[in-house]
């Protein structure tokens, strides 16, 4: 079997796990919970094997030595690796805090990345390294950057629940509206990508696997009626989320005895891991590599600039927390904004801005 088949199986397992975690949250049926964990662990094992195989395939193709053959060279591989990191982080949390309740909130982040891979029709081929990427720094730079990204993603999930929990008694507060908006947009994009998948891949209205169909079944549809319907549906969803979301999440959290202290702890610890590791891997190692390859350790390239912005947002979080005594919803909002910056740093820069980091384009 080839690597992409292992990745395919793990994708299916993670998507099913996401469904199982959400059902578990609603039903509290412990069998469902065990199934969810089993699927996640299974998917993780398959994905890990997939990476091993892909590494070997890449090494075979390039013959540049095993360290330089790390399969982290294009967007497809980096998204897969991002998912791998998030799932690993989640499994550690499930094991450490002995609760499956976070699964329903963290697996959708993996789900979103996988749905994006599926619907963008991005190339899954091995892309042999251009001279600029033929360096031992590649592995360290990408690996550590993504550990950072995974930490920030988990902090995002925990902060959203935190915000839902602490503001549920006041739907008119800014913080409540903020998290319903953020969670709403996140969920709508995820659902829209799943609808894309059902329409273009399952129902077979497809023109081949390499077509980009992002949001074409909903917001980007050819039919004006469907577009209108998508917007109305989204607004209705955010409205419902605003009206009932807080109380539902609070009820669920209470029934799983998830306290806000625990959520704050998860948020802080994820950032306390993500911030220094991203600083080291993304910024410092990135700069050292740039110095050695381009003769310029910092050139305000959009990717560099956004990485710095991202790092500053979390520096802001840490300083506000420790020196200004910020806590509660205010601080959690910073973690959610940080995640928005992270998505832009990772994907937005490559899609919307041009620059030196053009390897990760679609």
């Amino acid at each position: 079997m080839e690597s992409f088949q292992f990745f395919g199986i793990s994708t299916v397992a993670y998507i099913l796990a996401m469904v199982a975690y959400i059902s578990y949250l609603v039903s509290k049926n412990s069998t469902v919970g065990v199934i969810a964990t089993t699927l996640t662990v299974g998917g993780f094992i398959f994905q890990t094997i997939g990476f091993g195989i892909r590494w070997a395939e890449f090494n075979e193709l390039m013959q540049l030595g095993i360290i330089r053959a790390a399969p982290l060279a294009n967007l497809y591989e980096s998204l897969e690796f991002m998912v791998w990191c998030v799932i690993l982080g989640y499994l550690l949390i499930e094991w450490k805090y002995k609760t499956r309740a976070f699964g329903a909130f963290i697996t959708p982040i993996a789900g979103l990345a996988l749905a994006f891979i599926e619907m963008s029709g991005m190339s899954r081929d091995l892309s042999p390294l251009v001279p600029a990427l033929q360096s031992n720094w590649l592995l360290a730079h990408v690996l550590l950057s993504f550990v950072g990204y995974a930490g920030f993603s988990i902090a995002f999930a925990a902060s959203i629940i935190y915000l839902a929990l602490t503001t549920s008694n006041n739907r008119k507060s800014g913080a409540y509206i903020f998290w319903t908006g953020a969670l709403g947009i996140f969920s709508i994009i995820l659902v829209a990508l799943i609808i894309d998948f059902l329409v273009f891949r399952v129902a077979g209205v497809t023109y081949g696997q390499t077509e980009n169909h992002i949001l074409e079944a909903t917001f980007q549809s050819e039919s004006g009626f469907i577009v209108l319907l998508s917007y109305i549906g989204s607004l209705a969803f955010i409205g419902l989320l605003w009206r009932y979301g807080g109380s539902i999440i609070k009820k669920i959290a209470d029934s799983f005895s998830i306290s806000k202290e625990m959520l704050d702890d998860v948020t802080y610890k994820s950032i306390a891991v993500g911030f220094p590791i991203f600083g080291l891997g993304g910024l410092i190692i990135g700069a050292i590599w740039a110095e050695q390859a381009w003769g310029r350790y910092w050139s305000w390239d959009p990717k560099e600039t956004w990485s710095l912005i991202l790092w500053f947002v979390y520096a802001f979080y840490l300083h506000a927390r420790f020196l200004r005594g910020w806590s509660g919803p205010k601080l959690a909002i910073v973690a959610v904004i940080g995640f928005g910056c992270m998505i832009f740093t990772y994907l937005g820069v490559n899609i919307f801005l041009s620059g030196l980091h053009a390897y990760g384009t679609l």
Partner: protein
Amino acid sequence: MNEKKENQKENQNVVDKIVDKVWDFFTSIKLTIIILAVISLTSVVGSVVPQRAEPERTIGVLSGIVGEAFAPTAFIVLDALGFTAMFQSWWFLTFLFIFAANLIVCSIDRFPKIWNIIKEPIKPAEPDVLNLMSIKREAFIKGDIDTAKGKVELAFKKIGFKPQLHPESGSTQIVSEKGRYSRLGVYVTHLSIIVLFIGVIIAMFWGFHGGVNILEGTSTSVVYSFRDGKEIPLGFEVRCDNYDARFWEGTDRLKASESWLTIIEDGKEVKSKIVDVNRPLRHRGITFYQSSRGFAPSQDSLFRFAVTSVNGSKENVELKFGESFKMPGTNIKVTVADFSPALGIDQLGRLFTYNPDEMVNPAAFLEFRENDNLLHRQWILRRYPDTWRVQHGIVEFKDLWKAQYTGLQVRRDPGIGFFYLGSFLMTIGLHAAFFMSHRRIWVKISNEKGRVNVLVAASSNKNREAFEKKIDKLIKSLEG
């Protein structure tokens, strides 16, 4: 006289007040938060607006954001405000300066307090102090104080702490600590940012960053500054002996982009190296980086072939466009009649030039003649050995030399040591600040009615739960 003194005093007060005010301004965390936000937000604009680009390109990008109608106006406004070369603008540099000043002043302001904790090693504490510690445990051990002491010392070693004994009247304290200096992590991180800034400033004033294109077979002793386009003399000569781009098999994806460079000082060759993107050449503090390549053929460009005749005799030949050579050992004359820098073969087997500006897939068109009779004609593709086979032997197309130039970035940065020092300091600073903690344990052993009472107090400035677990392990090994 008195009045003058009074005045002086008053002036002194005013100066003090101003200094205090400035100091307060720079020590405020509010300033930190504002300056982080300001740098971030302006950087967002700077990442969207193309930097130091052609106006046409910038206006094109702006059209996509504000619409075609407003794009030229938006460009004029952004250009006037400095957003089109933002990261070099005086106001952005001022933000960075304020950021650095804030960092330095805040660190100086807070440092003495932390230093007081750091310079004092752990010592026995009074019971009321022990009571304040966040982690407290108690255990009882049968036997006398000496056995208890031994047990505690062993338990300390088990969890990786070095015990220090302090006998007191009627009791003994055993104390230990770890990671006292990790409290410096934050300051080391801040210091590293300052060190990086110093490196940047040195590079700005005493370094240069420029570029140069060198045609194969030629040399240069100057490069051109990226800042103002001015010539910068190197003090030695650099020659490009050869440039070669290699591609991944079956694709036009670059695999290697190599320049054979030689340094010449006073007419003597002193150093040679094959430079590629991740393999720069350093000489006398100046570094040459592979950056780009270009195709500029001329009358002087030389075709290089390795020719093997059917009878086995071999020869290397070098000739210009339109010139001829003889197949070794025969009477057959071969002429280079045409050339293509990138010859492709379409599905019908037809040849076409697909990238006239780059030497991606060079091909030479050869005519074979004997006594002026045209025998046959053939395209020879450098990257396809199958095409080298001709009726009268093999003609390997080695290279078209003096047709490509290498694009080098050239830098002199006397502050580079600060960059590496800053990177190193930031790495250990972040590590100490986030992954280490100052952990302290005090154990008081005293006799209590035939058994020994062991009082454990401990504290950690970070990650208390993990340390608490360790302390529980210590208690367990005492009781066991």
